[in-house]
C-alpha cells in the first residue's frame, strides 16, 4: 500500500487581544490509497501540483473523476471521490466540490464506509471555514469527529477536536475550547504526536492568556516548547513559539521579558529569508512592546519596516495591527493628527476584513483621539460591542447545542451498546442454561436408562436364581419323596414281608416232600424279593450331592431342549472336580446366558449336527469349551455379531478370558476361562 501525503492548509485567524496575532495552522492528512491503476493516481498527483495552472489542475481532476466513474463501485471509489472533491475545493471550484463531495457522501452512506463519511464531513468543514461560516464548519467537524471516533481513528478524531477547539476559542468560548483541546491532547499523548501536542498546548496557553491567567499561560507555553523540542523539523516554529511567549509576557506587563523573547527570535538572521511574515510580526511586536516600555529608540523605523513588508505580502491582518500600533505610537508622542489618520485607516480596514476585535480596538482608540467625534465613536463602540457579544453568545449556544447533541448521541450509543451487551450476555446465559438443562436431561435419561438396564439385568439374574432355587426345592422335594418311598419300602413293606416269610417258615406244613420242597423254595424266593426291594430302597436313598446336581441338571435339561430344536446330538462332559455348589450364583447365571447365546449361534448359523460342551477346572479357573461341527466362519472378515459381543462382554465382566476359533466347513470352538 502506497501512502501519499496531501497537505491541507487551513488558515484560521486567531482571536487574539487588542494587540496582534495571526496564526497559520497547517494540517497534514494522510489518505489511504490502493495502488490501483494507474492513471488516476498520476493525474491526482498532477492536479495537486501547485506549479500547474488552475485550468490544468481542473482538467486532471475531471479526467480522474471520469475514469473513476467507470470503475466498479466500492470503498476505494468513495474514498477517491472524496479526495477529488477536496482537490476541487483547493482550486476554488466550489460547484464541482459540492456535487462531488455530495456524491462521495451518498456513496459512502450506501457502502456504509464510515471513513469516507467522516472525510466528506471534514471536506465540508474546510469549505465552510474558508467561507468563514464557522457554525456550519463546527457542525461538520463534529460529525466527522463522531464518525472517526466510531471507527476508532484516534488521530483524525483528535484533529477534529483540535479544529473544534479552535473555532470555539475564536468565539471566546474559552471553557468549551479548553475542554475540547484537553480531549485532543489526551488522544495525541497516546499517539505520541509531538507536533500536534505542541500546537494543542500552544492553543491552551493562548486560551489562558485570553482569560488573563498569565502564569498558567506560561506553564502551558513551557509545555508546548518541551514538545516542540522533540519535533525534528521545526520550520520556524521555534521563532513562532518565542513570539507567543513574548506576547504572554507582553500581556502580563513584563515588557522586558517580552522584549528579550522577541530579541532571541530575531537573533536568527536567516529568519528574514525563511519566514518574512513572521519576521515582520516579530519586529512589529517588539517595537510595540518597546513603546509601552517607554523605549522609543528605533521603534518608528521598525513599525514602518514591518508595515512595508506586510504591505508587500498583502498581509491585511498584519497591516491592520501594524497601523493600530502606529496610531498608538503617534498618540503617545503627541502627533494626534497622524494618530487619528492611522486610527481611521485601521477602522476602515477592520470593517473591510471583518476583524471585529480590531474594529472595536480602532473605535476605542478613535474615541480617545478624535475629540470632536469622540462621543460618536464611543457610541458606535458600545453598540457594536453589544451586538458582537450577542452574536458571540448566540454562536456559543449553538456550539453547546451541537456538543450536547453529540453527548446525547454518544450516551445513546453507549446505552444501545450496553443494551446490546446485556442482550448478548442474557442470550448467551439463557442459551447456556438451556444447553446445560438439555445436557443434564440427556445425562439423566442416560443414567435412568443405565439404572433400568442394571435393574433389568438384576431382575433377570434374580429370576434365574429363583428358578434355580425353585429347581433345587423341586429336586429336594423329589429326593424327600424318594426317601419317603425308600423308607416306606424298607420299614413297612420289607418288615411285613419279612414277618410273613418267617411266619410262613414256622408253619407246620404237612404234605409230600415235593410240597415241602416247594414251600422252602417259595420262602427263598420271598427272601430274594426282600433283597430286591431292599436294593431298590437303597438306590432310592442313595442321593448325596443333592444341590450339586442342580446346575448340571439344568444344563443337561437345557442341552436336551436345544438339541431337539436345533436337531443336533450333544455330548456334555462335566468334570467331577467342579464343586458347583460353591461357585457363585452370578457366575452360574452368566455361564447359563453365555451357553444360551453360544447354542443359539450353533443352531442359527452353524447348522451343526454335533455339539460338545465341556466343563473342567484348572488352577481354580473354570474352563469351558463349546465345540460344534458346523459351517464355521472367517473370524477377521465377519463383523462380530451381537451374540459373540454379548458373550465377550459377559466373560470380561467376570474377569474371564475369551477365545474363538473357527474354520470354514470344519466348525467353531468357543473357549473361555472364568476365575472362581
Amino acid at each position, binding site marked *: 500500500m502506497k501512502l501519499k501525503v496531501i497537505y491541507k492548509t487551513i488558515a484560521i485567524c486567531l482571536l487574539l487581544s487588542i494587540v496582534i496575532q495571526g496564526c497559520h495552522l497547517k494540517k497534514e492528512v494522510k489518505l489511504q490509497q490502493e495502488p490501483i491503476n494507474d492513471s488516476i493516481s498520476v493525474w491526482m498527483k498532477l492536479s495537486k501540483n501547485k506549479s500547474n495552472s488552475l485550468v490544468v489542475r481542473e482538467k486532471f481532476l475531471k479526467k480522474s473523476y471520469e475514469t473513476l466513474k467507470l470503475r466498479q463501485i466500492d470503498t476505494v471509489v468513495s474514498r477517491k471521490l472524496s479526495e477529488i472533491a477536496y482537490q476541487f475545493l483547493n482550486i476554488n471550484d466550489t460547484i464541482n466540490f459540492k456535487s462531488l463531495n455530495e456524491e462521495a457522501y451518498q456513496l459512502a452512506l450506501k457502502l456504509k464506509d464510515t471513513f469516507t463519511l467522516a472525510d466528506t464531513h471534514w471536506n465540508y468543514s474546510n469549505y465552510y471555514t474558508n467561507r468563514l461560516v464557522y457554525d456550519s464548519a463546527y457542525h461538520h467537524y463534529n460529525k466527522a469527529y463522531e464518525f472517526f471516533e466510531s471507527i476508532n481513528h484516534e488521530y483524525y478524531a483528535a484533529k477534529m477536536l483540535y479544529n473544534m477547539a479552535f473555532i470555539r476559542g475564536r468565539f471566546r468560548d474559552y471553557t468549551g475550547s479548553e475542554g475540547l483541546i484537553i480531549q485532543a491532547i489526551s488522544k495525541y499523548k497516546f499517539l505520541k504526536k509531538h507536533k500536534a501536542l505542541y500546537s494543542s498546548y500552544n492553543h491552551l496557553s493562548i486560551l489562558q492568556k485570553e482569560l488573563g491567567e498569565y502564569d498558567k499561560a506560561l506553564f502551558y507555553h513551557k509545555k508546548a516548547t518541551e514538545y516542540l523540542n522533540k519535533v525534528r523539523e521545526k520550520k520556524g516554529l521555534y521563532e513562532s513559539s518565542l513570539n507567543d511567549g513574548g506576547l504572554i509576557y507582553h500581556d502580563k506587563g513584563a515588557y522586558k521579558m517580552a522584549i528579550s523573547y522577541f530579541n532571541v527570535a530575531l537573533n536568527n538572521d536567516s529568519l528574514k529569508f525563511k519566514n518574512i511574515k513572521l519576521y515582520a510580526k516579530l519586529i512589529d511586536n517588539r517595537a510595540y512592546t518597546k513603546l509601552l516600555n517607554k523605549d522609543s529608540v528605533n521603534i518608528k523605523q521598525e513599525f514602518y519596516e514591518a508595515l512595508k513588508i506586510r504591505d508587500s505580502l498583502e498581509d491585511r491582518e498584519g497591516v491592520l495591527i501594524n497601523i493600530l500600533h502606529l496610531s498608538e505610537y503617534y498618540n503617545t508622542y503627541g502627533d494626534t493628527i497622524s494618530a487619528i489618520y492611522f486610527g481611521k485607516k485601521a477602522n476602515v480596514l477592520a470593517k473591510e476584513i471583518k476583524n471585529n476585535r480590531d474594529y472595536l480596538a480602532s473605535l476605542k482608540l478613535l474615541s480617545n483621539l478624535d475629540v470632536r467625534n469622540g462621543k460618536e465613536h464611543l457610541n458606535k463602540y458600545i453598540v457594536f460591542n453589544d451586538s458582537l457579544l450577542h452574536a458571540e453568545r448566540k454562536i456559543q449556544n449553538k456550539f453547546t447545542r451541537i456538543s450536547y447533541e453529540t453527548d446525547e448521541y454518544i450516551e445513546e450509543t453507549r446505552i444501545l451498546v450496553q443494551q446490546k451487551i446485556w442482550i448478548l450476555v442474557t442470550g448467551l446465559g439463557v442459551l447456556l442454561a438451556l444447553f446445560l438443562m438439555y445436557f443434564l436431561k440427556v445425562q439423566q435419561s442416560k443414567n435412568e436408562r443405565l439404572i433400568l438396564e442394571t435393574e433389568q439385568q438384576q431382575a433377570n439374574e434374580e429370576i434365574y436364581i429363583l428358578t434355580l432355587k425353585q429347581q433345587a426345592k423341586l429336586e429336594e422335594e423329589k*429326593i424327600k419323596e424318594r426317601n419317603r418311598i425308600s423308607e416306606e419300602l*424298607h*420299614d413297612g413293606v*420289607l*418288615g*411285613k414281608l*419279612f*414277618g*410273613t*416269610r*418267617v*411266619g410262613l*417258615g*414256622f*408253619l407246620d406244613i404237612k404234605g409230600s416232600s415235593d410240597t415241602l420242597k416247594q414251600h422252602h423254595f417259595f*420262602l*427263598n424266593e420271598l*427272601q430274594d424279593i*426282600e*433283597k430286591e426291594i*431292599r436294593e431298590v430302597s437303597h438306590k432310592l436313598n442313595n*442321593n*448325596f*450331592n*443333592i*444341590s*450339586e446336581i442342580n446346575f448340571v441338571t439344568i444344563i443337561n435339561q437345557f442341552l436336551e431342549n436345544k438339541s431337539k430344536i436345533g436337531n443336533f446330538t450333544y455330548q456334555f462332559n462335566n468334570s*467331577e*472336580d*467342579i*464343586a458347583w455348589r460353591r461357585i457363585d450364583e452370578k457366575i452360574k447365571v452368566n455361564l447359563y446366558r453365555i451357553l444360551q447365546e453360544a447354542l443359539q449361534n450353533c443352531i442359527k448359523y452353524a447348522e451343526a449336527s454335533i455339539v460338545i460342551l465341556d466343563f473342567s477346572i484348572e488352577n481354580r479357573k473354570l474352563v469351558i469349551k463349546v465345540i460344534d461341527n458346523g459351517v464355521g466362519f472367517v473370524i477377521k472378515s465377519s463383523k462380530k455379531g451381537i451374540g459373540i459381543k454379548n458373550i465377550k462382554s459377559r466373560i470380561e465382566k467376570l474377569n474371564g478370558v475369551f477365545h474363538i476359533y473357527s474354520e470354514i466347513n470344519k466348525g467353531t470352538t468357543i473357549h473361555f476361562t472364568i476365575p472362581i
Partner: protein
Amino acid sequence: MDNKIHKVLIIDDHPLISEAYKSAFNYVSKEDKTISFKIEVTHNCDEAFDMIKKFSVNNKKLDIVFLDIRLPPSKDEKILSGEDLGLKLNKLLPNTKIIISTTFNDNYRIHSIFKSINPDGFLIKNDITPKELVIAIKTVIVDPPYYSKSVVKLLRKEVSNDFLLDKIDRTLLYELSIGTKMKDLPKILPLSIAGVEKRKRHLKQIFNVETVDDKELLIKARTKGFI
C-alpha cells in the same frame, strides 16, 4: 438239662413280625422239650419301657429281649428308637441278653449299635431264614453271641481296615451321605464350619481321595464299610 422257663420280651411294631418271632421260639421249645419260653410282646417304646421297668422294679429276671431298632418313639419323646431302649435295658437289666433284629444294613448304624449296646445277638432281617432264626435263638441261650451274615461281613471289613475313625468322623460321613447341608452340620456335630472342613480334608487324606468334591469320599467310605 433243667427244664427252664426263659422269659422273653419281643419288641416290634409289626404284629406280623412279632408273631413270626413267637413262632420261632415255639419251634425251639417244641424241638427241645427242656426249654420253654414265657413270651411277652410289645409294639411300641412306651409299652416296652413299662415292661422293662416292671421287671426291674420287681427284681424279676428277664432272659431274652428281641429288639427292633426302628420303633415309634415314646410319647414323651425320651425314647426314640430301639437303640435307646437297648441302652435302658443295659442299665436296668444288665443280665438280659439282647437280640437286635433290624432291617438296617448300613455299616454306620450297625457300627454305632455295636458300640452303644453290644448285643448278644445281631440279626439283619434280610439275612434271616426261619432256620437261621432258630439257630440264633439257640446260640444266644447257650453260647452267645450270634451275628447274622451281613454283620459278620462288616466286622471282618472293619478288622481288616487300618482306618481309625472316631465317632465324629463317622457321623460326619453319615450326615454327608444323607445329604445334610454344610451349613447345618455345626448344629449336628460339635464342630464349627472350619472344623468340619478340616475334618473333611483329614478324611480325604485317610481315604486317599484327591477331588474337592465329597462324592468320591463318600463312595470310598461306603466301600470301606463306614456308611
